[in-house]
């Protein structure tokens, strides 16, 4: 079973993502900020990570930078309420940049796609 790490500070959204991805048959682990997210990445060795940008303690861009220094290949999806960060070079280190939406189908498709790509 593929393991997905969801890093998101807003509890209701975190839960929504967790439940939706679990329905798709993944094992889902979560973290409420960048610091906890990095610890989970080291400890749990997930197959894919989704990162929110605006978070307390360590924001999404810092977390992305930290992970990419250690792991160049793990699929990472950034999703944010703010579309304007696609202009930011730092976000280019992620495999996908998605703007948050109540319709999670695109998000779930991208997760599946990236995991398949990684396996091949």
């Amino acid at each position, binding site marked *: 079973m593929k393991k997905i790490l969801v890093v998101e*500070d*807003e509890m*209701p*959204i975190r*839960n*929504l993502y967790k*439940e*939706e991805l679990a329905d798709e048959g993944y094992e889902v682990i979560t973290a409420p900020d960048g610091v906890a997210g990095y610890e989970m990445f080291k400890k749990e060795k997930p197959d894919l990570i989704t990162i929110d940008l605006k978070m*307390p303690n360590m924001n999404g861009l810092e977390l992305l930078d930290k992970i990419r220094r250690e792991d160049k290949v793990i699929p990472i999806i950034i999703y944010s*309420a*703010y579309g304007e960060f696609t202009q930011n070079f730092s976000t280019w280190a992620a495999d996908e940049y998605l703007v*948050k*939406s*109540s*319709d*999670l189908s695109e998000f779930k498709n991208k997760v599946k796609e990236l995991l398949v790509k990684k396996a091949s």
Partner: protein
Amino acid sequence: MDKEDIIKNYEDILRKYNILNQISKTVASTLDLNRILHIILTGVTFGNGFGFNRAFLFLIDHNEKNLIGKMAIGPATEEEAWQIWGSIQQKNSSLEEFLNSEDFIKNLESEILNERFRNIKISLENQKILLQCLNDGLPRRVDLTLKNNQFQSQFQSQPKPAAQFQNDFISDSAQIEDELLNLIDYPKFCIIPLISRTKKVGIMIVDNKFNKREITKDDINYLLMLSQFAASSIRNTVIYNDLKDSLSALSQLNVKLTDLNTKLSYLKEYNEKIIESIPISIIVIDNNFEVTLCNENCSGIMKVDKSRIIGKKIDTHKIYLDGGIDLVSEIKRVMNDKKQKVFYKVAISFEDHASDDIFDVVIAPLKITEENPEGVVLVIENITETVKLQKAINDLKRFSELGQLSATVAHEIRNPLIVIGGYANRIKKRLNEGKKIDSRNLDLIINEIRRLEKIVYDILDYAADKEIEFARVDLSLLLSECIDFAEISSERNNISITIECGMEFIEQEKMYMYGSYDKLKQAFINVLNNAIEASHTNDLVKFYINRVKDEGEDWVYLKVNNKAVLANKDDIYNIFLPFYTTKLKGTGLGLTITKRIIEQHSGIIEAESSQEHGTTFIIKLPLIN
């Protein structure tokens, strides 16, 4: 003595009395000092007069310390002496004719001796013969050719001198001023003091250097007679000239005074014009409450003619500010306390006439000297236009904030919408699949909808263009309610709270301010809530209340401190901006609304944050009586 000698003697006496008469008549005809001196000296030296060879005249200076050489008549040399006498004897004119002749008038300044003599100064300080003469008023005969013993024997052989001249012989040059000896340069001469009543006027010296005739007792008697009216004429003329000088100085002073007066009245008019033309009302009230000054602008806003204000007692007028404040009582209070009072943005009613205009009113003690104020000055400025302008600026500021707000709002409502939409989709999917629905999913949707409602409420509150209803607010009561709230709220959140200056202080102080009770309460509770919610469990929150009276101004300070430290330096500047929040809960509008309420009440709110002291919000608000 035979008969002929007696007749000749009487003729001589008559002639000399005649000369005295002529001199006195001529002298009396003028007030020119130089001419008087000239007439006297000419009379003394004229061949047909007393016939002395030379005559010198000194006048005493104002301090009576020096004799100043004024005029001298006589030839400088023996040769010259014969020339002058020759020419005068040829004409054979009388003294009176000569004094009125053109020769005399022309020669006024041309006497040779004058050159050496004029302005020579002899000090009286060494107390020699000249001072003695002036002090006792007696003449002296000087003969330095006699040794003391010779003088004694010669004197004894002569007929007994008149009693009054017993001490008038001087034969010792040491008794005589050196300057005088140098000037005369002849061993025999006579010193005649010039004294008018008791006033020392000067000294006349005569001698017969060229024909060497001895000076007789008779000579001295005639000279004494001459000296009497000479002294008084000279004195009168000097007084007259001094008076004339003083008069001319006075008239010059008068011209200057007139000039100064013109400048003063110009300055006065200039100041009055400034006071009359400024668009501010000024009333000056003296210690008896009487109006001593009132400008045009003032009579304009009081709608009363100036004549009905100036010179009248101020308490004959009914002047009230907002909230029924009696301006006249306030003026009396300033008169007593000598402390300035200021009323900002108030409406004024004069004699029951109220207008919609808004004024700043200042009552200031009028300081003439530091200890003794002469009254008060009342300054009233119509600030209606300024207030309108300020409101327009505030409106613009709010529109610009609303622009930023809408961008932020779009983001703020996105997260709740994702949760609501996301869970709605999930529930629909599970229903379609015939699966069970978790009711916690519905709770999440309901919570997010509540959050959206709160955001909408705050935005409406913030954007509302409602004028606050201002009234007298019992701040002591309001603060005691806030303290109750803070205690309950901190207990619920497991936070300890300390309140400095507690209820006792609040009840004693009786603090009032002008504003909205509800709005102020909302502002204070926002700040307290903010501090409690940003604290960790068991943290301490401190609430200080303090009152500061300074220079007639009265302020309340509220400080709310917690241990939380703002992570980012910019947070301290951004903390009052809309939707700027460091909390997980909240809409980010609370402090923005709080700041606006405080500013609407002419107050100030600031925040400080440091590792050492945590974060403190400071609110400063003006109190009223």
